[in-house]
């Protein structure tokens, strides 16, 4: 590295310093504190007096079937909701990308679910899902699809899917918007050249469009996964603490706040953090390797 490059690197660090400090204060410190608490028997009513218990909390955590159930629920929810959101979001983006009349209004309209606060939409869906006076059962029974009302949020076979459906409804617009932005950046000449060569539209999509918008989709996927892994509010409102839909965050909060067991709850939060970090790192590494290979080809 030459002296100029060294000087520029040093200057860059100076510019980064303020944001790094803020990050350390608002993200790093609470995180360290949580990890620290996870090794103690701290109690929320009195956070001054606690003793060090080593890995006890983690051992207890690993022996709790409800915890593993909530890990499983969270992973299922993440895979199902993110996959559906990517497919639907991309479809909507492709439709919006075609020059249709009223496109501007359409773009604004798809954003509405995203703009409604989750608590409000969760309550709204809770009414619609109600087994005896909800609108879904009314409609489905009206057209004769079902004979008996379905208990959407109470039936353990359906309740997690009911949560996935609300999340898909709410966050598909986010994916659609990111995909649309990426689609608009694809150079028109590529499509023209493909058309001149007589390439089939499906092949155009898979050979030109998809590889070029892949980085944006990857970003959308990572954001959505980070969000989905710490899902809390929707589940809390829709199904409360039922074990068949409990997520890791709901589990951690229950122990932290309801049971005031800061040590054990922090252990659950720490595990959640480690899992999120691991999954994000894996996805980013795989995605980068994949992208580099595409570029080399």
């Amino acid at each position, binding site marked *: 590295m030459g002296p100029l490059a060294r000087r520029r690197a040093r200057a860059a660090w100076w510019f980064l310093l303020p944001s790094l400090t803020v990050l350390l204060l608002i993200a790093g410190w609470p995180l360290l504190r949580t990890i620290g608490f996870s090794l103690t028997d701290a109690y929320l009513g009195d956070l001054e007096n606690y003793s060090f218990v080593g890995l006890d909390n983690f051992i*207890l955590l690993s022996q709790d079937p409800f915890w593993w159930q909530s890990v499983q629920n969270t992973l299922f929810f993440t895979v199902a909701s993110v996959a559906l959101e990517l497919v639907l979001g991309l479809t909507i983006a492709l439709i919006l990308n075609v020059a249709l009349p009223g496109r501007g209004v359409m773009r604004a309209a798809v954003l509405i679910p995203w703009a409604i606060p989750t608590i409000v939409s969760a309550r709204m869906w809770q009414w619609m899902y109600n087994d*005896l006076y909800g609108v879904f059962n009314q409609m489905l029974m009206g057209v004769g699809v079902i004979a008996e009302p379905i*208990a959407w949020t109470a039936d353990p076979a359906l309740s997690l899917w009911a949560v996935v459906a609300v999340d898909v409804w709410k966050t598909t617009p986010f994916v659609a918007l990111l995909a649309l932005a990426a689609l608009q950046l694809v150079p028109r000449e590529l499509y023209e050249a493909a058309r001149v060569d007589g390439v089939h539209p499906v092949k155009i999509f898979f050979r030109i469009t998809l590889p070029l918008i892949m980085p944006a989709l990857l970003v959308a996927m990572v954001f959505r996964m980070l969000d989905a892994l710490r899902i809390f509010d929707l589940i809390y409102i829709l199904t*409360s603490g*039922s*074990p068949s839909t409990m997520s890791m965050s709901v589990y951690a909060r229950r122990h932290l706040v309801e*049971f*005031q067991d800061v040590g054990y709850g922090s252990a659950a939060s720490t595990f959640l953090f480690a899992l999120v970090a691991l999954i994000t790192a894996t996805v980013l590494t795989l995605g980068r390797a994949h992208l580099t290979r595409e570029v080399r080809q």
Partner: protein
Amino acid sequence: MRLNNILRLGLLLLCLSPATLVRAATVSISCGAVGIELEVCRDGAEAWAEKTGNEIRIISTPNSTTDRLALYQQLLAAGSADIDVFQIDVVWPGILHEHFIDLKPHIEPERLRAQFENIIDANIVDGHLVALPWFVDAGLLYYRKDLLDKHGFGVPETWEALTHTAATIQKTERAGGNRDLWGFVWQGRAYEGLTCNALEWVHSSGGGNIVDDRGEVIINNPAAVEAIDQAAAWIGTITPLGVLNYEEEQARGVFQSGRALFMRNWPYAWTLVNGGDSPVRGKVGIAALPRGEDGVHTGTLGGWQLAVSRYSGVRQEAIDLVRHLSSRREQKRRALEAGYNPTWPELYDDPEVRAAHPIAPTLRKVLAGAVARPSDVTGRSYNQVSNAFWSAVHATLAGKGDAAGNLALLERRLERIRRHRGW
């Protein structure tokens, strides 16, 4: 003599001009909002405000008792002064006591002696009076008189009779065109309410309690297994599957719109199902909950108390408000206007209360046999114990394993909580 007169004059003057001497304070009180609870609370608190020249801020709280406790725990753990007077559940003194002041020095001993002894006891932790009782609850069976008469059934004495009656009437009514009718609705969501419901099934069938008075875990016994398996068999037959997500108000919604024959609920629902706009007005009766074959009638003891926050900036006014709201006179008003059940036994014999509140004698009997949740003996671990219990019951109701397996798991779980948290 002269001195005495001057003193009296002085006192009189003091009384005449309270506003100039006492600065008006704003006292915040958290009230429940189930049914018409909030309005009745507001009326009582505002009457006090008018009388004393202070101001009142009413804070409404979540309907689910579990959510309400979590909210209180967050506020109190942060030492927040946002709420001065807390409406707390009868099972919370052991969990929250360190955040409330001792009311004993502010209450006359005879006033305490005149109220239900077991409820006063529930509010005493380590010799401190944590809260003053406000109203008392117990689980009751609501039934549709008209439907029972029409089909020639009596009020069921046992759970088995209830199951049979509900199944028969539901079948006949549905065949006759009343397609939405269900037999029995209750509170089956995974929350504190399910602990109350399930404890009633267990206790009334001779299965005892979750934890006994000495702290031993006794829930894993044949009578309890049978009682919970029986409830699981109701799901989908006489009880809609949706009950697994019902709280009090959802159950009342179904019953009050005429779509259920029986309902388990607290006394508050009585006034509402007989309200002016209720489709089942005048068609409803109440009774003690059924019992098991060799069991006794019971109901889970509930009820709400008023406590003053340690972090309150207007402590004296807050104490005065609690004294006013929990007084015999105010409790009588609440009984007459909204059917809230007083914590003063003598009020159950009051002619006015009896006239306005015909269920008072039944309730008094149920209260005498009510079963208390084990909050006393498990102390600050109570909500963890209750959570483990309702989770095991909810899993059984949802068809994930049978009661025998789930109660065995529960027993191990409770022993583990006991070892690690202690009680």
